[in-house]
Structure formats: structure tokens, C-alpha cells
């Protein structure tokens, strides 16, 4: 067995180990969310969606950070691997932003009696969702010869703008602040709530990075395949 194949086998082993860890974490988190914590007093069982909702939101911000880091690294080094990573983070970010929006809507329907409310944090995530979408659209429909550099530039601009968007939305007149100010204010007084929240968030962040890794690996392999087939044609 040569060196490359040895490295490949070791990498495969690491990937399976990571998959196992993420799967166990998610299962543990699921157990806590559905069995470990009692029903919330006012909202009842529907409150359990909170753990996925907020956890996904935090994972989503991790995606933004990954897009920023990948884009900056690509602009500095021009290594395709960073471009692939930021592409993966943008796609996974879009998925998590969708989860946040949908879980928020499912939660809002029984509690606020509305699917979507004109409310700062909902609005922020709608914007974040649109920003991820624009990153993907530019990659798909942009100038094909310059896609990596262009996407990196937009990645930097978008990632810097996201916190400003979130901040500016919170500055808006708070006529419609329905969102519970949970952590650090009054909610989550029960220890089991806090533990479930912590473990779910941690699991979702790990899951997010694992998905980014898998998507990046697919992106990398597909580039190699395209290059090999272009080579073969020559």
C-alpha cells in the first residue's frame, strides 16, 4: 500500500469517526429535547421546537463565519480548497436558515396565531436567507471564468453585512417585538432546560460543520473529476 492510499484510508476512518460522534450527539440531544425536559408551563409541548430553532440559528451564524473565513483565505492564497469550503458553508447555511424560518413559523402559529409576523428577528433571518441565496445564485449564474474570485468578494461583503443587517433591524422601532428574550433575561430557569438547550446547540453546530465538510469534499471531488475529464479530452 503506498503513502497516498494509507492517507486515504486514515481519512476515511476519521470521517466515519466524525459521523459516529455527530450521530451520537444528535441522538443524545433528541433524547433530551423529547424525553429529558418536562413540558413548558404556558406553551406546552410545542415549546420543544425552541431547541432546534435557536440551535439552528446559532449554527447558521457559524456558516456565515465559515463563508467569511473561506472567502478571505481564498482571496489571500487563491487556493481552490478555500473556495470550495465557502461554497459548502453557503449552501449548508441556506439549509439551516430555512430550518430556522420553518421551525419559527411552526412555533409561531400556535403561540402567536400567525405564520409570519413583521418582527425584528424573523426579518433578520429572512434577510440572512436571502443573502445565502444570493451567494448561491452568483455561483450558479455568475461569470463562469471568474466564479471563485467573484464569490469570494461577495462572500466577504455579505458576511460583513449580515451582522449590520441584524443590528439595524434591532434598532428599528420595537412596535412588534414578539420574540421572547430568552437567554440571560428571564427564561430557561430550570436546569434541565438549560442543559437541553446547550447540548442541542452544540450538537447542531457539530452537525453543521460536518455537513460543510461533506459538501466541501463533494465539491473538491467534482472539481478533480472535471479536471481529469478535461485532461483526458486533450
Amino acid at each position, binding site marked *: 500500500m503506498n503513502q497516498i492510499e494509507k492517507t486515504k484510508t486514515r481519512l476515511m476512518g476519521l470521517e466515519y469517526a466524525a459521523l459516529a460522534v455527530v450521530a451520537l450527539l444528535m441522538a443524545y440531544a433528541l433524547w433530551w429535547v423529547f424525553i429529558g425536559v418536562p413540558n413548558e408551563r404556558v406553551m406546552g409541548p410545542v415549546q420543544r421546537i425552541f431547541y432546534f430553532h435557536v440551535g439552528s440559528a446559532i449554527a447558521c451564524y457559524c456558516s456565515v463565519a465559515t463563508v467569511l473565513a473561506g472567502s478571505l483565505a481564498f482571496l489571500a492564497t*487563491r487556493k481552490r480548497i478555500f473556495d470550495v469550503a465557502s461554497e459548502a458553508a453557503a449552501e449548508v447555511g441556506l439549509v439551516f436558515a430555512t430550518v430556522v424560518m420553518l421551525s419559527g413559523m411552526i412555533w409561531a402559529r400556535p403561540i402567536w396565531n400567525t405564520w409570519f409576523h413583521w418582527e425584528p428577528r424573523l426579518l433578520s433571518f429572512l434577510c440572512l436567507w436571502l443573502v445565502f441565496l444570493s451567494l448561491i445564485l452568483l455561483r450558479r449564474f455568475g461569470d*463562469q*471564468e471568474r*466564479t*471563485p474570485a467573484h464569490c469570494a468578494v461577495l462572500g466577504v461583503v455579505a458576511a460583513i453585512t449580515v451582522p449590520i443587517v441584524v443590528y439595524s433591524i434591532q434598532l428599528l422601532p420595537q412596535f412588534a417585538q414578539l420574540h421572547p428574550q430568552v437567554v440571560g433575561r428571564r427564561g430557561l430557569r430550570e436546569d434541565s432546560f438549560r442543559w437541553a438547550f446547550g447540548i442541542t446547540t452544540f450538537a447542531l453546530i457539530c452537525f453543521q460543520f460536518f455537513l460543510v465538510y461533506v459538501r466541501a469534499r463533494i465539491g473538491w471531488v467534482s*472539481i478533480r473529476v*472535471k*479536471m481529469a475529464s*478535461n*485532461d483526458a479530452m*486533450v
Partner: protein
Amino acid sequence: MLDVSNISYQYPTVPVLSSCSLSIGRAETCLLLGANGSGKSTLLGLVAGLKRPSTGCVKIDGKLSSHVRFGGHELMLYGQFTVEENLSLFVALYGLAPQSAVESLELWGLAAYRHRRVNDLSKGNRARVSLARAFLGSGSVILLDEPTAALDDAGTRILCGAVERERSNGSACLIATHDLARLLPIATRVIVLKDGAVLADSRADEVEGSAGIQRVVEQYRELNR
């Protein structure tokens, strides 16, 4: 004077140049030959600094970033401006005397078209304006990408004259072309590219001078057969 070392470049998924190296000295006129897609234009774009290499570097007089003169497939002009306005703009950008624009117009036989918009010119005249722009400035390395493709014989004579004049001033000229018939007479060296790497170089051969050029040209013709 011009040193390209181990340069590689790839479009998102298409490798174009792989570890290509060459160096060109003072007062050389070097023809760059090669089939379509062999990497000629990409190499010139990299030397001009319009593209960034994935590996390797380009040095001119030992320095990494230095301005070269470049006439490519594209005009690099405002299509909506007249010939004179375009040349005046570049004369101003290069910090030359305003008179240079008029001189350049006359040199390239464009005086009659000076007030025409570039987009209204014929293909041949557009090529002349583009070359007139390329020869402005003071970079000691001149890169031309298929300069004779749209030129008539009179235009080619003007071009050859301009290249010879620059060579006598010590400039190095690298010309990517398929037009051996019209450009071989002014060449002092010939390089053939194949699949993004140097296949043959008249100076690297044991036989130097015109015999070397002859041999490399034969090799190139053999490739095309």
C-alpha cells in the same frame, strides 16, 4: 529581462499551463507558436499581470510587478469614443506629451479616422487602434497576441516596423501568432507551446540563430500536419 518561472494556471476546472518556464533577453523578438488551446494567450495574460498564476512567478528585470505593453484579442478601448479620444486618454494615463497621440495616429495610418467612433471602424482599423494603444507607454516588454489576424499587408508592415524599432531600442517582444509567413522575417527566436508547456525553443537548441529557428519551425509544421 523577462523571466517566467514554473508558471501554472487553470480556469476553474480546466488546466491551461503547467509548470511553464521561459526567459527572454533584451532586444529579442520572439514568436510564440502553438495550436489553438495550447496556452499562448493565457501565458501572455499572465505575463501582462491580467491573470494571477496558481503557481510560479513572472519577473521583469528581476522585479515582480512591472508594467508591460500588451495588445491582445480585445481592443481594451471605449467602443463609444472616437479613435483620437481613446488614444488621448491612454496618452494621459501613461503621462506622455499630448503630441504623442497625434504621432501615433499618423504612424498607424489612422489620421483619416481620428473622429470616428471605435465601434464604427472596420475590423482591420480597430486592430490598428488597438496596436497603437499597445505601443504607447514605456514598458520594455511588449506582448502581442495574434496582432496580424485582422491586419492587411500595409498594417503588417507598420507593425513590423514598430517592432523592429522597439527591438533596436532594446525592448523584448513576445508575439503569439499563426502568421509565420508575415512575421517570421522579424523574428530572432521561435518558441513552440504544446499543452501548456514549452515543446521547442530555437535558442535552447544546439544550433543557434536562423538555423535554429528553421529547425523549430519545421517541428511546428510537423505538429500541424
